[in-house]
């Protein structure tokens, strides 16, 4: 068990490219921290620097208070689970899991006991004598976890360990990874590009973009109080809706109509010196079919009317897609998020709004629908800096 501190850790490649810039993270003993971000954001580089597989260009990495920059991976007492699992194909499952213990010159009886115990935890007992090539993806993943836990290291590093599994298995494994981590209480750093994994697994989440830490906080905090446009767009699924809007005399002129700001939001925007032109963000779950709401509830928000383009019924809820007139909010952050999602080529004029409605909504494709949204859940962003103007920190 250990606490891991990254103090202004930077990775610069010989060609001058910066993969990670001055990363400051303090990971407490036993904590489960997620590094999340789109591809190329430096999350794997950061993990490899903690592991010792990549050199740290500047800054300091401390494990349990001691500087670890120059330590070889084998001297850091950290176990890693790779995206590809990296199982040794010429060894059986038992030999794979015993490998770290054999290198540590542990005696045979202890090796056997520890491997059996880990196999028990991971439900691998009946596969111990098989080769990795004869295992399914989920079993290989568990062997990789087993190899990490047998020697009770100070910390686990996991590099997208679930991304090679199919969706259903990924959900199951996600739960068991969380359970295992709680059971062992070992400090864990987990890298993923999947915001669902980030939200469900971590005690704290670190959102990265272009090698720079955007925000660190509990999943719920990041969801409710994103520090900037990037975090707001990255966290949450489906992601937050963004439209360009104008602040005028305490009211917000937007493609969703003119909205009277609530006192709380007006105060925050004033404190942040909000510019006239802003980006308005609303999460899909803060919309509702106006026909389903009581009058007094409705008074807490505003409504607009638009034609439903697409309706996805999930059984427990419905997702309605609208096109509203007006400019699409275009900022560097949002374009990067769109590029990561592969959505840059989707043509369209105006802005598409996604709203999550109750399953009992009577919305129909092609018909106009009166949509209500909660005015107190709005978020305003500065289009030039991307900063959240309604951030209450």
């Amino acid at each position, binding site marked *: 068990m250990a606490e891991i501190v990254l103090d202004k850790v930077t990775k610069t490649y010989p060609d001058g490219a910066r993969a990670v810039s001055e990363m400051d993270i303090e990971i407490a003993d036993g904590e489960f921290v997620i590094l999340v971000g789109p591809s190329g954001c430096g999350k794997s580089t950061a993990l490899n620097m903690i*592991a*010792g*597989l990549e050199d740290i260009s500047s800054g300091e990495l401390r494990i349990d208070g001691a500087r670890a920059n120059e330590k*070889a*991976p*084998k001297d850091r007492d*950290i*176990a*890693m689970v*790779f995206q*590809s*699992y*990296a*199982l*040794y*194909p*010429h060894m059986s499952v038992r030999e794979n899991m015993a*490998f*770290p213990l054999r*290198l*540590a010159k542990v005696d045979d009886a202890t090796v056997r006991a520890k491997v059996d115990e880990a196999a028990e935890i991971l439900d691998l007992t009946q596969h111990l004598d098989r*080769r*990795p*090539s*004869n*295992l399914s*993806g989920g079993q*290989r993943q568990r062997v990789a976890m087993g*190899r990490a836990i047998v*020697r009770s290291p100070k910390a686990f*590093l996991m590099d997208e360990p679930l991304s*090679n599994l199919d969706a259903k298995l990924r959900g199951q494994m996600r739960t068991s990874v969380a359970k295992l981590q709680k059971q062992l209480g070992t400090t864990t750093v987990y890298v993923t590009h999947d915001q669902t994994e980030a939200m469900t697994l971590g005690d704290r989440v670190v959102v990265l973009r272009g090698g720079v830490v955007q925000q660190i906080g509990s999943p719920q905090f990041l969801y409710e109080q994103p520090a900037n446009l990037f975090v707001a767009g990255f966290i949450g699924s489906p992601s937050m809706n963004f439209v360009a809007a104008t602040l005028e005399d305490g009211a917000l002129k937007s493609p969703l109509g003119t909205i009277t700001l609530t006192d709380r939001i007006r105060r925050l925007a004033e404190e942040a010196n909000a510019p006239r032109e802003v980006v308005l963000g609303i999460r899909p779950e803060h919309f509702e079919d106006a026909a389903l709401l009581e009058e007094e509830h409705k008074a807490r928000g505003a409504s607009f009317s638009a034609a439903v383009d697409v309706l996805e019924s999930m059984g427990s809820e419905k997702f309605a897609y609208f096109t509203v007139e007006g400019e699409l909010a275009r900022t560097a952050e949002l374009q990067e998020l769109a590029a990561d999602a592969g959505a840059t080529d989707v043509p369209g004029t105006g802005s598409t709004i996604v709203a999550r409605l109750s399953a009992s909504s009577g919305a129909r494709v092609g018909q106009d629908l009166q949509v209500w949204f909660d005015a107190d859940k709005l978020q305003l962003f500065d289009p030039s800096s991307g900063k959240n103007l309604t951030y209450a920190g």
Partner: protein
Amino acid sequence: MVMGTVTTARKTRWALLDIVIVVYALIPVLWIASLSFKTKDTLADGNFIPREWTLQNYADIFATNEFIRPLINSIGIATIATVIAVGLGMMAAYAIARLDFPGKRALVGVSLLIAMFPQISLVTPLFNIERELGLFDTWPGLILPYITFALPLGIYVLSAFFREIPWELEKAAKMDGATPAQAFRRVIAPLAAPGVFTTAILVFIFCWNDFLFAISLTSTEAARTVPAALSFFTGTSQFEDPTGTIAAAAVVITIPIVLFVLFFQRRIVAGLTSGAVKG
């Protein structure tokens, strides 16, 4: 039933094709084997299957030092050259496959150049150099050029195999507490084994079959290998044709190659790395 007939027809076609190729490839070998079993009188009768069988030719070659000593030279020189070339080749190939070092392209280019260089043009300089250095007609005098010409081949084959091994396995070994040497010995080398055996076979065959260096850089039985020695075979009198004994010697020197390949073939298990990573 229809499926069954189709399969039978397919099988027959493939079997025929296989037989044609095997016969085409083996006729010269069978011919020389046939010659080696013929008596002196029936040697030139043109029959594929000897009418009179004899083992006299084999008895003759093993009766003199003219064959046994070169056989020992061949085995010793080829084995030592193979071990050294594969050992050096492994290190060089690993560096080429895994590391980025200055001059890597130059190294690969030069080794390719050596492989393509016409060996005959080097015989005269080598002859002079070796005489000056006292290497002429010694084992090292043949081992050194063999290593030089076998290395490029070894590096090529081995670096292809090393490139196939997922790099993450080495990282995993390091994370599991291995030193770089342990990671190479316990994880990378076992996985590269098929490549090492393939390379060893190719290098051994190259050394074993070489005639040019063997005839040019030796003068006595101190280092003369079998292919060179065969050309010095004589009959018991100057009027006698040594065809029968040459054929017998040719058959004998083919046997180690066949054994070598059969022995190592079982270890060349393709796809050994499957299952290491999802793919």
